[in-house]
Every structure is written in C-alpha cells, then in structure tokens.
C-alpha cells in the first residue's frame, strides 16, 4: 500500500510532524554549536576526515546552516529546499559516522555542540531515521498553506487524482 493512497490528511500530517521535529532538533543543535565554535572545530577535527583549511570554515558555516534550516522548517517557508538540505546533511553525517565507527575512533559526536557523548551505532540509527524523516518531509510536505487554505487542498487533491 502506497503512502500517497492513504486518506487525504495522513501524509501531510505526518510530514508536518516530521518537519517540526526536524526543525526543533536543528535549532537546538545549531545554537549549541554557534555558542562555542572552537569546540565544534575540535570535534570536526577529531573525525580526521577534513584538511586543516576546511575545519574552521565548516565550524563557522554549518551551525548557521542548521539554524536557518530550522527556521525554514518551522516557519514553513522554503520547505522543499530546507528538507533537501537536511536530508543531504544527515546523509553526510551518517557517512562520516560510519567511517569513524568502522575505523574504531573513540571520539565525541559533536552532534549537539563540541562535547557530547562518544559515538556509537545508536547515533547512526538516529541519523538514518532523521534522514528518512527529511526525505518524507521533502516529498509530502507543502508548508502551512496546505492546512490553512482550502484552495491548496483542492490543488493537492487534483494532483493526487492525476497520479
């Protein structure tokens, strides 16, 4: 049974929940990292995946990307772009985590700021779940409008009947 064949409100409501959850998680994670950029830089360095020149740049930009994504996801504007970026981010995090776990590194995750618990396979499970949520939100969420305006509801229904 395909998810788009579910009764009308199910997919958008799940997508909304996913989107808001992702937004809150990103907002918290981003703010924690913005508070202490040098600690986060150290956490990135500990993964031993990037050259020295890229570490501080990423430590400056990534937290803000997370915060702006969170704003987009919660406010419901630029939802597609935000969901796509969030999916790409979680994909990248998962790959980095997998490489580090396979290498057997005992390092801080850096997921929520510089010094959080050391990495394990549960973190990878969490990242892939969040990746799935991002992809779901990318394909099924249409912003707040789909709940507020009847017009867009009928548009969505038309789209469904075409598919």
């Amino acid at each position, binding site marked *: 049974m395909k998810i788009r064949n579910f009764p009308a409100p199910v997919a958008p409501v799940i997508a909304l929940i996913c989107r808001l959850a992702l937004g809150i998680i990103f907002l918290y994670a981003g703010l924690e990292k913005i508070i202490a950029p040098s600690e986060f830089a150290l956490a990135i360095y500990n993964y031993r995946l990037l050259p020295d020149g890229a570490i501080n740049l990423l430590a400056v930009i990534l937290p803000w990307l997370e915060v702006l994504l969170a704003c987009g996801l919660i406010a419901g504007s630029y939802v*597609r772009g935000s969901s*796509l*970026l969030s999916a790409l981010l979680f994909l990248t995090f998962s790959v980095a985590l997998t490489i580090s776990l396979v290498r057997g590194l005992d390092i801080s995750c850096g997921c929520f700021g510089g010094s959080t618990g050391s990495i394990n396979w549960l973190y990878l499970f969490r990242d892939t779940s969040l990746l799935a949520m991002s992809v779901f939100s990318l394909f099924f969420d249409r912003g707040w409008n789909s709940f507020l305006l009847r017009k867009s509801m009928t548009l969505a229904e038309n789209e469904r009947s075409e598919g």
Partner: protein
Amino acid sequence: MNALQQNRKFKVASKLYPAVREALIIVIITVIVAIAFNALRPSGIPLFGFSSSELIKKQQANIPLITIAEAHDMYLKKKVVFVDARDPLSFEEGHIAGAINIYPDEVAIHLTRLKSLLSENAIVVTYCDGPQCPLSKETAHALLSQGIPKAQVFINGWSLWLHAGYPVARGKI
C-alpha cells in the same frame, strides 16, 4: 509502462528542481550570515586558521610529568605500567623492567595488550631517552586519545632510571 515511468521520473524531477533552487538560496544566505556573524562576534575564530600540528603540541604540553622518585615509588607499589616509546632496537638493548615497547605510530596495534596489563588504579608512564626526546610525549598523547584514562611522561626516563641503578631488563617483550 514506459510512458508511466517517464511521467513518474518527471514528477520527481519537478519536485526536486525547486528544492535544489531553494537549497542553493539557503546556502548562499547562510554563508553570508555565518561569515558576517563570525567576523563581528568577539569570540570569532579565523576562517582558515585551524592548525592540527599546533593543537597536538598544545595537547602534548598539557600531559603531566612525573619525577624519577615518584616513578620509582609507584613502580614498587606496582601502580604503574611503563611504556618505552623508543625504537625496538634500543628497547631490546635495555629497558625498565616490566616495560612494554610502544612507538608513537604503533599505539593502535598494542592497545589491547596495554589495557590487559593495566589494573584499575594503575597509570601509564611513557619514557624515552634524553631531555629533548619527543617520543614519550607523542606516545602518551596517542594513548590518551585512544582512550587510556591516565598517562604521564617521564622525561629522560631511560638514562635517569639506568643511572639510579633501578631494575632493568633486556630483550623483546
């Protein structure tokens, strides 16, 4: 069937294209905001200023040192595992009795053996030869970063130990 597949591909693409465009806009805004914020805040960090070699030096400088008297005392109480950070040939010619040989680059290989030697309240003391020798610090740093809880550096350890007449051993371990 083929037309249906193409139609489906088209629908996915038509959803992804605006997503990519929006994502690019978000990334551009982010880069501007992030760099501006970092430049303005007092605790901003240099964008390309990360230096791993300086970081390692700094971390190595923070490793506590141990004097010969303390080292010998702990040796008598069996609260210490000595790690000889010199090359294997020097180790074979003579080392502190009971020490194991771990060159800085080979920490990962010997880690399980070292952990099995460490009792609960024992610490690791690394040494090499000569006051300027960097190997003991490098090994201690590598051990700490691999999850050994406590390591101390015994500067000029081999010469001091030998001249003090404390127990030494020869050969491989």
